[in-house]
């Protein structure tokens, strides 16, 4: 099975194509790409439908109550498209299988624990950064926004600063 997996695309070609997708996104809708926004909108509408009283009292969820349905937005449909596109690509390249990626020195359980913690931090940080690596850093870089570039430098800068302390996870 392992041998039938196709190789990954040349990173520069992938980057070029990603740039084209990003450009297309700007040309069509006037905004860049993003992923955490979809997650946020899903989370928000889940809270609104499950706990309406809680949502009404909250300043954060309250902002979404009177606007459009957060599920029927550009961001969420973008997320659904990502799922379809990734599935398509994984199927074509024969890479669809259940597994866990982890460094050689840790167990699967540790990896899963850290993945959850990392997700939590990313979910939180993406709110502060008004977007994640794609929405704030990548799209922000394409339009040369100060905020986007700052977020990008903060993400990678922090990553390199603390990489040493987490080396056991990956190497």
């Amino acid at each position, binding site marked *: 099975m392992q041998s039938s997996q196709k190789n990954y695309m040349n990173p520069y070609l992938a980057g070029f194509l990603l740039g084209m997708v990003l450009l297309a996104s*700007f040309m069509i809708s006037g905004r860049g790409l993003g992923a955490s926004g979809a997650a946020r909108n899903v989370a928000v509408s889940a809270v609104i439908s499950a706990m309406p009283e809680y949502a009404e009292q*909250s300043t954060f969820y309250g902002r979404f109550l009177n606007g459009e349905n957060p599920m029927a937005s550009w961001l969420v449909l973008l997320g659904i498209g990502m799922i379809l596109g*990734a599935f398509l690509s994984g199927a074509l390249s024969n890479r669809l299988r259940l597994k866990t990626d982890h460094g050689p020195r840790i167990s699967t359980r540790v990896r899963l624990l850290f993945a959850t913690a990392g997700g939590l931090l*990313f979910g939180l940080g993406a709110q*502060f*950064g008004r977007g994640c690596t794609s929405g704030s850093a990548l799209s922000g*870089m394409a339009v040369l926004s100060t905020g986007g570039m700052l977020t990008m430098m903060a993400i990678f800068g922090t*990553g390199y600063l603390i990489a040493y302390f987490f080396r056991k996870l990956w*190497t």
Partner: protein
Amino acid sequence: MAPLIPHGIINPELTLFFALIVGIGFGYVLEQAGFSSAKKLAGVFYGYDFVVLRVFFTAGITAMTGLLFFNYLGWVDMTMVFINPTFLYSAITGGVIMGFGFIMGGYCPGTSIVAAVTGKIDAMLFIIGMFAGIFLFGHFYDLFEPLYNSHFLGNIFVYDSLGMSRSWFALILVITALLAFAITQLIEDKINKTSPEKIRTRPSYVLPAMLLIVSMIVFLFLPAERKSRPGERAPDVLLAEIHDEKTYVSTHRVIHEIKNGHNNLVLIDVRDKAEYDRFTLPGAVSIRPDAIPDRQWRPLFKKDQRDKVFFGNGNSKAVMAYLAASRAGYERIYLMDGGLNAMFGELFADEHIPDTTAYDLQNRSTARFLNSARQFFLEGGVAAKQEEEKPRIQAPEESEVIPVIGGC
């Protein structure tokens, strides 16, 4: 002109469909690049795999170069593009938190979605964690709010923050990225102990790199702002139009149209708002000359098939408005010759009304026309019509395209 949806070129109802299409492209490319593997992603911090940096920066500079040129060529209107707002400390705090999240989780939101779809269990847990993080933020929002909204600097550009010109910054960014590609390749080879054989057979990227640098250097020599826009009419055409009597509509025709309640003309009052509010012709819309190029009036000039007639008190302001509209490439535009001064001078200053007793058919019919027009105006025909026809054209609301809560 792009962006297509905010400009109404693509039906806004299709927004979600295009979101899906763009999303499919996004997900496909991310998966093909190998972003569904946390080990590969985290490699950027340990030097064994710089794929993240390569894909990320190539995409960034490609899109940036495209946007710069498309903007120069007038293909994309950057004022309608979402520029990420800068909240200084919130952006940095968020970045630092995300930096921790990246190292610990090995994914970022986009890549975790892609990885989860292809079956990575750690990515699924990452997504669950991400939702927990969002709930956390939502729950303690009141606590975070001061930081979240502090130091708002506007939708500013990094070249302005650094005090350099846009084209120089873009060139420096491109060169930095290309240097980073070369250096990280060396580091990666050293850490992975790549065999010299493999390095020698590696494809060369000189061509695309050179193309990028050349295009950025070309951009450096292009004027920062194009004074001539595509689709504009040339100055000699404008000059010829001013001398062409077809440009002018007589006050008689306008009176005739008003009197008969026809809806064939769009009357555009170019006087000041105060004058317009005090009195205007029935159904006239107020557009000062300097507002002619505003985006909100585009549909009126581009889509309305009726003749547009500019009028002021005299001809001078109307001619400014006419020239601006004509230069912008608008069609079916005219000038009411002599303006309101001429119109009312003729109607109400007696010497202009020809002698009806004279044996001159031309004169007599003109006189009859003017007399009936005068009667019509004095009987309040204008005022009454004004009431009923006023809402005919209203300034379309500036469409709100820039979402306040952007998010990625």
